[in-house]
């Protein structure tokens, strides 16, 4: 049987029963021996093509939902919402069930009408990437856009981003923009915005509220603080990590408390520490090098693997996620020594996630120090990787700049919590 055009009206017979419906598109993962029919009661069913006797087909034009941009008035500080892709920027097509990108100002206002009275918003979509596809070149583009937006008078920026690598991007922009003129708030969603239970609306509301009302320059991530829908946590871009595959409170500040909380209902911001002051003028360092790598150490790591990673021809900097306080097996020492002798940079972080590395406690640590490994305190391994890519890209001396606290990526003290 030849392919029936999607969205055709169809009337067919199976055995002695006649059915009517609309032929729906099939996904890539569904075979071609069946057709999907939407019955008049709204249900879809799948039927083997060979079973049906077609009585009538009326091809119809696929009516994609036309998104009409509506005019709206909004009041408050000038905020730019930048769309980059991901769950938060996509919408389901009710007819096909396909998730497609859609991120326009009027759609956002439609989803979160409260925004209109909080900020005067503009929306700009600069790319449409799932977060796993983000590259350092995307960070560069985002950094430039943010820089330009501040230069042109925006008071705050909100970046809608896929959640998987949102903390990498937040980290990248933290380093790329020195002394941003206002808040840059990354926001994502763990439940797609087509479902009534989506966290997209409240996260966005929290992000815009913080961007418009906090007067706290810096790069942040705004996501649910708990399973409740009313409190949004504002994390510092260099202290945050996605810690759960699906929960809406997946993002947690590590070795720090969230910088602030936004109470959605009361429209209040509660800070947990003093606001950051702008110390100098805004400057952009937008380049990133891909000659850095992240290695997670594990028992049984093979020599071949170590040899291929600690290769100065490929990488100029290696960030190690060591065990515990920052250790690797003695058997790796020769590769590390060689690499450092060839002027490679090795930074040590911990795979424990929480806590700081300390290379002076055990002999292994002291050996690593004498080899020339640089301990990176409580910097998250992902942040250390991004920072080294940034440092390499902009020609900084890694040995000097990596252990230095530039954007709050290293905490001097860790509170008892």
């Amino acid at each position, binding site marked *: 049987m030849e392919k029936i055009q999607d969205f055709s009206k169809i009337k067919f017979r*199976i*055995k002695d*029963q006649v*059915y009517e419906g609309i032929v729906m598109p099939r996904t890539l*993962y*569904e075979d071609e021996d*069946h057709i*999907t029919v939407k*019955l008049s*009661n*709204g*249900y*879809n*069913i*799948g*039927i*083997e093509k060979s*079973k049906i006797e077609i009585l009538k087909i009326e091809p119809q034009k696929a009516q994609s939902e036309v998104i009409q941009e509506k005019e709206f008035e909004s009041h408050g500080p000038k905020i730019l919402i930048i769309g980059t892709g991901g769950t938060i920027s996509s919408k*389901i*097509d*009710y*007819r*096909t*069930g*396909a*998730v497609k990108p859609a991120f326009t100002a009027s*759609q956002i206002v*439609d*989803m979160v*009408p409260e925004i209109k009275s909080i900020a005067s918003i503009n929306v700009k979509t600069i790319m449409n990437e799932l977060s796993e596809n983000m590259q350092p070149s995307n960070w560069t583009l985002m950094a430039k856009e943010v820089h330009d937006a501040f230069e042109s008078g925006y008071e705050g920026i909100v970046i809608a981003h896929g959640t998987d690598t949102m903390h990498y991007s937040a980290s990248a922009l933290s380093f790329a923009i020195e002394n941003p003129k206002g808040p840059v708030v990354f926001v994502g969603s*763990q*439940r797609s915005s*087509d*479902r*009534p*239970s*989506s966290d997209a*609306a*409240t996260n966005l509301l929290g992000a815009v509220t913080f961007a418009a009302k906090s007067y706290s320059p810096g790069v942040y991530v705004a996501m649910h603080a*708990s*399973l*409740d*829908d*009313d409190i949004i946590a504002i994390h510092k871009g260099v202290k945050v990590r996605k810690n759960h*595959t*699906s*929960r*809406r409170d997946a993002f947690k500040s590590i070795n720090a408390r969230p910088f602030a909380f936004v109470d959605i*209902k009361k429209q209040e911001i509660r800070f947990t520490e003093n606001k950051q002051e702008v110390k100098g003028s805004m400057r952009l360092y937008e380049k990133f090098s891909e000659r850095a790598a992240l290695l997670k150490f594990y028992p049984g790591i093979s020599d071949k693997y170590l040899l291929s990673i600690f290769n100065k021809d490929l990488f100029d900097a290696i960030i190690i996620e060591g065990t515990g306080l920052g250790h690797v097996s003695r058997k790796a020492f020769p590769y590390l020594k060689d690499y450092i002798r060839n002027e490679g940079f090795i930074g040590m972080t911990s795979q424990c996630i929480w806590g700081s590395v300390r290379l002076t406690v055990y002999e292994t640590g002291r050996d690593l120090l004498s080899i020339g490994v640089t301990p990176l305190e409580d910097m998250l391994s992902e942040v250390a990787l991004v920072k080294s890519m940034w440092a390499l890209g902009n020609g900084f001396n890694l040995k000097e700049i990596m252990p230095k606290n530039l954007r709050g990526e290293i905490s001097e003290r860790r509170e008892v919590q």
Partner: protein
Amino acid sequence: MKVGFEIHIQVNSARKLFCNCNPKNEDISHLEFRRRLRVSSSELGEIDPAAAFEIKKGLDIIYVSGDKTSCLVEADEEPPHEPDPYSVEAAIKVSNMLNAFVVDEIHFMRKIVVDGSNTSGFQRTAIVGLNGNFDFRGKNVRIQTVCLEEDAARLQEKGEGHSKYELKRLGIPLLEITTEPLEISSEEARALAESLGRTLKLTGLFARGLGTIRQDVNVSLEGGGIVEVKGVQKLEQVSKVIDFEEKRHKMLFEIAAKLKERGVNEDSFEIDPIDVSEIFKSYANPTVKKFFKDSAMALKAPGFKGLLSYETVPDSRIGLDLADICRLFGFKGIIHSDEILKYGFGNDILNQIEDRLKVTDNDAYVLVFGDKEKAALCLQMVKERLKMAIKGPVAETRYATDKGTTRYLRPRPGASRMYPETDIPTIKITKEMKDKFKIEVKSWEKAVEDFSFRYSINKEMAEQILDSDFIDFFENAAESFPNVPPTLIASLIVQVFIPYQNVGKNIEYDEFIKLIELFSKGSIAKEAVIDLARYMLEKGLSLDNALKEMNIEKLSVDDLRKIIQEKISEVLQENIEPTKLYGTLMGRVMSVVRGKIEGKIVDEEVRKALESLKKD
């Protein structure tokens, strides 16, 4: 009159449809979280006004999650797992049993539900079988669809500004079987629901007990809309509900005719709610103080004088529907002009309201006290409801009460907002599965016969137990206490449980298992079992307290013998005929020991005592 059913029955699976929680587990701890559901404003139009209003004002939904009966999936914090294979199999078996066409691929859909009963904001549902049939009294009843879907969370409380739901029931697999509406009497409809329900129960695929089978009943009269009545749990309600709806529909046609006579048409409803707060502000009589806080809104009901309180069966009046609409918005109720005199506002106020609303001879009006904005929205919905009365009975969703009447729930939703559940891949149903997943239709008569034979109880009792929610209780008690005659357990169910359940009493299984255990140990007499059970349910007492209050204690055989000896000496002094000796003695002894010891033992001991007397 046409009647159709949607039967919802819980699949007896050890897990939920989209996760591995077993709802039969006991929770150790509970956790609460707060959510809000949203739909974009462009979609609000698709939702009924009361629900849309709740969303707009940001109604808080509180969910209670038990640690063993729900997980991140029910909390909408984890994608659904693969659908429960047992439930899929059950759906195919039932579709086959009902001669339905089994689809080749199951596509789960999301049906938007925004009242909070689903954490996700939608219910997952799929068609498995289509176009089946069911043989009922020689009629071929068409089965439109067999759907596999997830049950909703149970509403625990609805307060001002929030609803609280418990997650245990959310996600339990349900089969929904929809019959084509049939021209049928209420009695036939009841029998059809019974017959279909029994056939389904006999498959052994479904859970048994209270709330495991629920039916929605659709009723329509020629020329009128289809009214869907939700939540009919008991079969006895089915015919009552249908009779009630038939009378109510006829009444609505009568009212429509009267409105037409009075010249009421669509144009008559070009009116808006009016703020009448000013009128109440200047009065301070007790009635005004009771109702009026800071705002009052009123709406004219054109041509409705006398029709708001008109009813042909109790609780069928339109006024009650209007009050229910207002309750959806969180108001306590409404006051309308057909009933306003009994409140005692004073003629002055009433005259002023009538003036403001420009009420003429045939008109009525409706008053709502409370938040102005909310009252205005609510009265808009009241207006829509009144406007519909021109046409007679219109499509709406109602719910069944215990009395067998129905109350207004919401307007009938338009074409359901349904879209594919993209988190669940389609399930292929192969020919092998279709051939393998078959189940025999068992005859009810045979099942009753088998049951009655297995437990040596009469057929009448067997049937009543099989039809009841207590079959698990029966089997459990009969297996656990083999020395207890099954007829006693059966009597307990038939004579006590069923009648008390019918008047709305909750039967706590564990307490009654203890009662049977007590009997099995010989601590109480057979007669006491039924009496105690009645007493417990009547007074709402635990077994221990009922025992105390009824002054029941165990009598030892030694004590019994003493009592028998006392009574023998009494009787002997009275010169009673020897043939009547046993009867008299037995009567005297029983009057003292009834309920405290097994009657069989009393009989034995009395006979023994008389034997030894003869020997003497």
